[in-house]
């Protein structure tokens, strides 16, 4: 008999707290990086070739879990963007827009299949470069990437069925700028529908997470996609601005912060460029007294701690009906204590690294703001690695609707908790921010779901679930959370002109 079984520890029961940590220790279970090759340096991908940046500048990319430099990326400047747009224009005119929908679709199917074949490599790179747990990049991000290409591949020769009474036509050259929270998934959301509809693209990944986009460029070469249909240019805000302001780009698609989204909308004012914006959020989850509380707590944990809370549609506000507030907070705290924060490449890790030093500082700034505003702060007591950017799962209670931590997007593992008495009060509080991206409802009563769901001014309503994504499901915001939809049939509208 081993020592472990001789201890006086009793197995957990539904009535007592689960306490794995003091009984079992997790051995490290890191995903091997042996078969993954990262080059010392990545060039720009323009017109089907990897080319050096015209000004010869490069910037490093860091693994946020270790602060080690992984590789470096080229900085695209005005001349590079110009070359990329010219390549995209040429490919649009000479080839892609006149190719049959069937053939465009088959290219996309081919890309989808190759993504599936290389899925593990992409997942590992995504976790190394961005800090997200391998469990998520392996089981959520990359499978959704392949699914997204597969879904839009099928639309390419069926577009006339999507717009009753209208004839869809491609827009032309699309400039696409994507964020660092779901690097390859956001690339898929942008490129798959654009190509399916006959457009060509110039895409800029975020400067902290460009690795998988350049690996994708290699895949595009291998898939034999005509040169210039997809161009990937790396760089920071200035590179993005060159894309936004380029005269020969017909449409801008941006995912990122509301602040930058407003700058983009303003800078293309009067130019006639089309645009879609997928911006910030401050999703509220409403949990009623008749909700299945344990199920709800699981959902709430996933809503705010999934991807370290770096999710524009994260459920970052919890509205609890008064009668169950103590119970819900206690169960949430218990569940938070079980989350493993640490090495993103470890298969047991629940919460990985904050994406960058800048974001680490932003989240910590908001924690201080919360304290200054009088919030009570609860953080899980787990150990976190000494090196790297890590923040413990955090609850802020005793907050008011007007507090900055309630109104502003923190984009980290921080959940605010407020209470309500009536459904109307909950809806009013949920809607009382500048945002309108997502919301959640937890109740066992179907009629309540539909009534509350109808009252929420947000593009996604998750009822008795949260943070679910699918290529067939339209996604996008009301109000200052953006304009336009991505995904599903509705996502096609972002990439066509209707005649």
């Amino acid at each position, binding site marked *: 008999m081993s020592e472990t079984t001789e201890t006086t520890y009793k197995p957990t029961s539904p009535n007592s707290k689960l306490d794995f940590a003091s009984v079992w220790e997790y051995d490290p279970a890191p995903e091997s990086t042996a078969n993954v090759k990262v080059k010392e340096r990545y060039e720009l991908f323009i017109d089907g070739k990897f080319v050096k940046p015209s000004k010869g500048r490069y910037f490093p990319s860091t693994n946020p879990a270790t602060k080690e430099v992984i590789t470096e990326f080229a900085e695209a400047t005005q001349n590079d963007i110009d070359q990329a747009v010219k390549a995209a224009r040429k490919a649009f005119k000479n080839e892609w827009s006149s190719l049959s929908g069937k053939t465009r679709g088959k290219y996309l199917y081919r890309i989808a299949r190759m993504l599936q074949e290389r899925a593990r490599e992409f997942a590992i790179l995504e976790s190394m470069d961005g800090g997200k747990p391998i469990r998520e990049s392996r089981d959520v991000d990359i499978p959704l990437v392949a699914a997204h290409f597969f879904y839009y591949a099928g639309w390419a020769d069926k577009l006339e069925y999507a717009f009753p009474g209208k004839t869809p036509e491609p827009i032309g050259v699309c400039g696409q700028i994507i964020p660092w929270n779901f690097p390859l998934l956001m690339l898929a959301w942008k490129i798959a529908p654009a190509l399916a509809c006959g457009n060509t693209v110039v895409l800029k990944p975020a400067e902290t997470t460009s690795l998988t986009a350049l690996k994708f460029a290699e895949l595009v070469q291998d898939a034999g996609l005509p040169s210039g249909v997809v161009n990937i240019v790396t760089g920071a805000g200035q590179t993005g601005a060159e894309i936004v302001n380029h005269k020969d780009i017909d449409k801008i698609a941006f995912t990122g912060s509301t602040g930058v989204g407003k700058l983009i*909308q303003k800078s293309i004012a*009067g130019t006639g460029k089309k645009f879609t*914006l997928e911006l910030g959020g401050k999703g509220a989850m409403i949990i009623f007294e008749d909700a299945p509380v344990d199920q709800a707590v699981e959902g709430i944990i996933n809503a705010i701690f999934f991807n370290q809370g770096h999710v524009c549609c994260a459920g970052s506000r919890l509205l609890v009906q008064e009668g169950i507030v103590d119970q819900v907070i206690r169960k949430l705290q218990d569940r938070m204590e079980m989350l493993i924060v640490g090495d993103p490449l470890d298969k047991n890790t629940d919460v990985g690294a904050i994406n960058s030093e800048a974001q680490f500082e932003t989240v910590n700034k908001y924690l201080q703001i919360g304290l200054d505003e009088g919030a009570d702060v609860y953080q899980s007591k787990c150990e976190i690695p000494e090196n790297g950017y890590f923040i413990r799962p955090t609850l802020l209670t005793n907050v008011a609707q007007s507090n900055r931590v309630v109104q502003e997007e923190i984009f980290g593992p921080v959940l605010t908790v407020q209470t309500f008495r009536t459904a109307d009060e909950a809806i009013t509080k949920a809607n009382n921010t500048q945002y309108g991206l997502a919301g959640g409802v937890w109740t066992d009563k179907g009629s309540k779901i539909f009534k509350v769901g109808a009252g929420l001014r947000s593009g996604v309503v998750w009822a008795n*679930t949260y943070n*679910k994504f*699918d290529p*067939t499901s*339209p996604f996008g915001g*009301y109000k200052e959370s953006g304009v336009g939809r991505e995904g599903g049939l509705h996502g096609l509208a972002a990439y066509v002109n209707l005649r």
Partner: protein
Amino acid sequence: MSDHLEVLKTYKMYIGGNFPRTESGHYYKVFDSEGDLLANACLASRKDVRDAVKTARGAFTGWKARNAYNRGQILYRIGEMLESRRGQFEKELSQVGFSANEAEADVNAAIDRLIYYAGWTDKYQQVFGSVNPVASSHFNFSLLDPTGVVAILAPEQSPLLGLVSVIAPVIAGGNTCVVLASENHPLSSITFAEVLNSSDVPGGVVNILTGKKEDLVEHFSAHMDVNAMLYTDALSGGLTKTIEENAAENIKRIINNPVGDWYAEDAQSPYFITDFQETKTTWHPVGF
């Protein structure tokens, strides 16, 4: 010759189901096609815009909660009321240069347009919504949901048919609106407000201001509680840029539908309804 001296109508604005004068206290002169004075119209101010937006916001929740059948009946009722008062509109149109035949055709088309959109209220959801076959164990559907408060610059040269054509699809979809009437021919819009007021349209759903486009566009496009803006006439490049720059302050949706001929086939479309709809997608688990 009768000894009846015509009683002239005071043309006021239409805000929240009432007919107030402008808070500015100012007016501008409206002339007929011969250049003779027709009326003194209200010169709306920024404060009038704010008041109208506030009342439109207040009416929004109730109006979007009306069921589609009810909204359809109310749009149909507007058509009925317009039909019953057609003489008044024909007279006002002829004053601004329409021939008798043109005026009659304009009113006919305006009535038909209302009937057209009345019929769409309970159908666009079926045509443009979707059930989405997600790969996980969830039921997932997308419905259209009105964008909110819409600012509308009514067409300058089509004071009745153009006006009806821009208002009807916006309210058919459950939005509320603040309309700036044709600057030079605003009288039909106020008379149309009388039709609205007797058609079961809740106060605040449609608000109509009269005044100077150059002055008011700035306030329409900059207002933080306006969700979307519609215009159909070509604007000067500078004004377009101003509108679009102001819109960025709260990510307003700016819709420019350049309809030239309001009698044309493409002057009415369900896409003019969906221009002012958000797609809302709801997920729910499926299981025992």
